[in-house]
């Protein structure tokens, strides 16, 4: 990895853009930074948390429109967060992308059952992830029946 990129990854950890659209919940700080940088390159504003126990509080206070969730995390795992988001009337309109190293169909099915809007296996093709985010962001918020 070249130093410029590494330094901007480190900087990416601190900055929390006002009114950002996308929250990344990911316990691996490098993965989280890299995803944030990628999203920023495509013009989105994003923020991440690496401690999953902070995720719900952050979602409630910052109201991101899209949440990108890792599945296997200590403290609270991604599926539990997904369920909490989708079952609370305050946050249920939030779009959820599961971004996980888990490669099993049953995990994908379970995530979609719990209300996730999309599931990407790590590492995803950057353009496919970006296309999905655009689609989710452009979708009218009030339509709760959106399916992939």
């Amino acid at each position, binding site marked *: 990895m*070249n130093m410029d990129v590494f330094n901007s990854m480190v900087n990416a950890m601190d900055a929390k853009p006002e009114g950002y659209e996308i929250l990344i919940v990911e316990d691996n700080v490098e993965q989280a930074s*890299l995803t944030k940088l990628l999203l920023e390159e495509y013009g989105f504003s994003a923020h991440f948390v690496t401690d999953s126990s902070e995720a719900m509080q952050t979602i409630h206070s910052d109201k991101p429109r899209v949440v990108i969730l890792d599945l296997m995390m200590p*403290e609270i*795992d991604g599926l539990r967060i997904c369920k909490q988001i989708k079952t609370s009337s305050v946050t249920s309109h939030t779009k959820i992308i599961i971004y996980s*190293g888990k490669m099993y169909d*049953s995990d994908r099915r*379970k995530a979609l059952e*719990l209300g996730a809007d999309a599931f990407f296996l790590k590492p995803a093709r*950057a353009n496919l992830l970006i296309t999905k985010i655009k689609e989710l962001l452009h979708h009218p918020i009030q339509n709760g029946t959106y399916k992939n």
Partner: protein
Amino acid sequence: MAPIKIKFWGVRGSIPTPGPRTIRYGGNTSCVEINFPDLPRFIIDAGSGIRELGKELLTIKDPVKAYIFLSHFHWDHIQGLPFFKAAFKPGNHFVIYGCDEPDVDLTKIISMQMNPIYFPVAVEDMGAKLEFCTINQGSYDVEGVNVQTHFMNHPGYTLGFRFNYMGKSIVYMSDNEPYLQNQQSDNDPESLEAMFEKFVDDKEGRLVDFISGADLLIHDTQYFPEEYEQRITWGHSPYTYTVDLAVKAQVKHLVLFHHDPDHDDDTVDEMARLSRERLTSYNYHIPCHPAREGEVITL
């Protein structure tokens, strides 16, 4: 200090396989007991092997307390529970640990398999006191034993366990498979897109840390590499991966576990031979053998 004793009550993966072809290693599904000196028993998984353990516990006059750690709830890890007679004896007390689902709690997961459609006795009518404790990836204290858990690469939430006690450590990882490694990108290698697409979260490194230096590693070795090629995403390991993990983590004793139901005793022996050969090829010399029903290891 008296030694820690580990006893194998069930070593088979997926489904019980009784019969002459599996007579030496045994056909019961996953169940391992750890006896720490002067502590209640620790039981890992409740496959069909737990039935015989339950019979042994019934011979004890005094009330029995034990901790049962369930790695996950696939049938081969819970199917013995309804036949665990010790849980029907009033006065006995079992604390059951497992990682539940966001929409189904642990009590329900266990009681569902004893729904009248599947079994005539309900969990509430088992007689013994049953306590359910949800755990996640983390570190827990149980009777002074430090129990660490780590998510496995297996469908659903599956836990591996590390038990640390008086300077000794035992790791149990019954259902686990290698992480995908092929990271490719069509983008300019210097681009952010390429970095994103080639990024490897070092999950295996964290797994190695979890196992590191264990006095005993009990790990899934369901397949030969040729079989594994056909069964990627089935959630189990070829012995080659298991041996490599053991070497990377510098464990002191490796037990091959969760034998494939289609592997007879001679096939299991062959896998053990190849595993030892692989260890030797790394110039790493530790005891390595298949788990055998009824076997006791002392640490």
